[in-house]
């Protein structure tokens, strides 16, 4: 069992006691709480400890001795009620102060305690004894206090703790659960409370913060969705890029083989070179069709020799742009950087791509995100995207060329 008394109640009791010229007594008001501590450890499943905590909130001093009992120690219930009035239900004990005596309950105190236990109907009524000891020359005075539980056979003395009485530099200031019963305090808070509290009694600041928090949460959720979608798109694009790369590699191999055969054939039958362009045409056309923009080195001769492939999409007024990719356009909106970027992004690009992309990767990364957004915000369908990639340069996407700058850059 533990007991605590608030600092101001304790000092009030001491004040009343020290100022009386004889013994002093009164009642302690408060409440008794039951605390259950459940401790779980590895050795056993769990143990519950029950602790009874007595809290003294207030006190009711008696104006004089023998105010509610007579010489024989018989308690008069009427007088008791007159002293306690409506606070009778809050009584948890009583106290006595006497100077220069032993810390032991006296004969009359025991008699009265038994009767109070019976009359008030509190089985565990406590008794707080203050004794004031002074040395003979009045140089040292000691106030001693002991809390008794006389109705128990054993462990009759309980230690009384006063929160925040001690070295608070090393401890935090403890807030006790003692309710504030001051009327003045309650009226002031009521008057000024509306500036800080809303109608539910919750502090306004807290509500505002909660709102900010929930807004942030929503946004985060939305962004999550966006990220999810764009990631899927990116995945698809990546797949297509990989496929195209494979095709390119295949075609390269095929074209290399074809060339070799043609060369061999040319070496054998020299005058017959009219067939070459056609076959070249066909093979190169194939190549061009599959991935012209990816291989500029291959594309050059192709582009120069087969303008009609791009006739549907290519603007007639910028043949240079069509024919030759602008090297510096890597990183600018007019350059097929998305494809390059895409290739670089997932690390599955071929060596030639990497060579192209070196020195401009940082720019490309920025461009990546911006290009992503552009792609997403314009809500281009993957098939149409593929189409634009295969059939035209990004320069064709934006006829303005330089005028259009991606949002990110």
């Amino acid at each position, binding site marked *: 069992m533990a007991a605590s008394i608030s600092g101001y109640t304790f000092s009030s009791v001491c004040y009343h006691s020290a100022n009386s010229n*004889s013994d002093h007594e009164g009642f302690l008001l408060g409440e008794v709480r039951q605390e259950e501590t459940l401790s779980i450890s590895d050795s056993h499943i769990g143990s519950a400890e029950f602790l009874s905590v007595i809290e003294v909130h207030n006190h009711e001093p008696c104006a004089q*001795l023998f105010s509610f009992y007579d010489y024989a120690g018989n308690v008069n219930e009427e007088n008791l009620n007159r002293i306690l009035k409506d606070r009778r239900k809050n009584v948890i004990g009583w106290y006595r102060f006497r100077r220069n*005596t032993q810390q*032991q309950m*006296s004969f009359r105190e025991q*008699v009265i305690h038994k009767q109070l236990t019976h009359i008030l109907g509190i089985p565990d009524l406590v008794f707080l004894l203050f004794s004031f000891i002074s040395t003979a020359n009045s140089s040292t005075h000691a106030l001693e206090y002991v809390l008794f539980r006389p109705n128990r056979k054993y462990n009759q003395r309980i230690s009384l703790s006063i929160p925040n009485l001690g070295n608070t530099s090393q401890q935090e200031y403890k807030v006790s659960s003692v309710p504030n019963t001051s009327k003045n305090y309650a009226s002031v808070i009521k008057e000024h409370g509306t500036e800080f509290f809303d109608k539910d009694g919750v502090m306004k600041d807290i509500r505002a913060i909660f709102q900010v928090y929930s807004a942030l949460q929503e946004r985060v959720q939305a962004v999550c969705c966006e990220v999810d979608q764009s990631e899927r798109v990116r995945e698809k694009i990546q797949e297509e890029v990989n496929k195209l790369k494979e095709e390119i590699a295949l075609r390269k191999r095929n074209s290399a083989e074809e060339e070799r055969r043609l060369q061999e054939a040319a070496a054998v039958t020299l005058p017959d070179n009219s067939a070459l362009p056609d076959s070249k045409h066909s093979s190169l056309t194939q190549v061009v069709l599959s991935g012209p923009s990816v291989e500029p080195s291959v594309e050059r001769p192709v582009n120069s020799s087969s303008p009609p492939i791009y006739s549907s999409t290519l603007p007639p007024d910028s043949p240079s742009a069509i024919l030759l990719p602008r090297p510096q356009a890597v990183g600018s909106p007019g350059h097929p950087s998305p494809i390059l970027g895409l290739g670089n992004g997932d690390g599955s690009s071929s060596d030639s791509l990497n060579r192209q992309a070196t020195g401009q990767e940082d720019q490309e990364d920025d461009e990546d995100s911006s290009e992503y957004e552009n792609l997403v915000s314009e809500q281009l369908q993957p098939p149409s995207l593929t189409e634009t990639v295969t059939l035209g340069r990004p320069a064709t996407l934006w006829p303005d060329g330089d005028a259009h700058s991606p949002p990110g850059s």
Partner: protein
Amino acid sequence: MNSLSPEVALSRISPELRPLLCSVVRNGRIGLDSSSCLRITDLKSGCTSLMPGPCCDRFKLHIPYAGETLKWDIIFNAKEPELPPDFIFGEDADFLPEPSELPHLVSWDAGKPECLLQLVKELLQQYHQYQCQRLRDSSRLLFEYDSLLNDPNYGRSMEIYAGLKNSWTGEFSARFLLKLPVDFNNIPIYLLKDTALDPGEDVALLSVSFEDAEATQVFPKLYLSPSIEHALGGSSALHIPAFPSGGCLIDYVPQVCQLLTNKVQYVIQGYHKRREYIAAFLSHFGMGVVEYDAVGFTKLTLLLMWKDFCFLVHVDLPLYFPRDQPTLTFQSIYHFTSSGQLYSQVQKSYPYSPRWDGNEMAKRAKAYFKSFIPQFQEGAFANGKL
């Protein structure tokens, strides 16, 4: 803690409480052992230290009881002297008397000086009841108590102290203090006058300590008030028989009582017998009597003459005369010893019988003198110088 002398205690106590304390300190004899009176220690005040003058209102009272000393705190309030006091019963934390059985508490009247003393007496009665209750822990001792209680001689003047059970060994001890109903009234006054202190009441107390509940270790002790002790012959009078193993108090106590009574009888008888003896010698030797102790009748000096030889006879009568034989000291009036004293011879054994009456003793003494004197004379002439 040094006890305060009554005067000091009275001077320090608050004036309104002084009469109450006065009666306790001056007249306070309670309990069987009234030779030691109530002592006051630890006089303190319940007022603030700023209060001037004598304002002490609480003290410790030492009360002798059953061979122990009870230390009870008595707490008044100097600022409200009409209120009855409160008590703390020292180490007897279980002792809680019923207030309704303390009439002087229920109707406390601070105007009556003896109110406090009466209240303390009532509390002590309650305490006695409480101790007797504690005897119930031991059936053997309870039997002892009950048997004594039923005896009218001892039942009413008994103090019991039932000691705490020794928590280590579980031993239980008790002490019985009994007042022995011995009549000391007829002891000759002269025997009682010699004590310097106020003798108080003449009382004999028997204290029997039981060190265990089975009464295997019993230690009896006899306490006599100082005058009685002196009258009966000093500390040798305190020898009593040991407690018989397996015996009980109801048999032992009357035995001790009888012993004491017999001693007193001897003393009384001795006095009378001595008186008779001296009276007989006076009548027989008449003018030969030089001097005699007319109060205690313990000494007699005769001056006798035989064939022109004068000599002194000093007769010393012992306390337990006639059981013990008187000592005769013959002294020559002419001869000196080398140390300058008169030559004398002591005779302790001579024809004597305690059954003789005074006259008979005087006659026989005379006869003895006649037979012994020639011998003495020769001795005196031979060994002494003129």
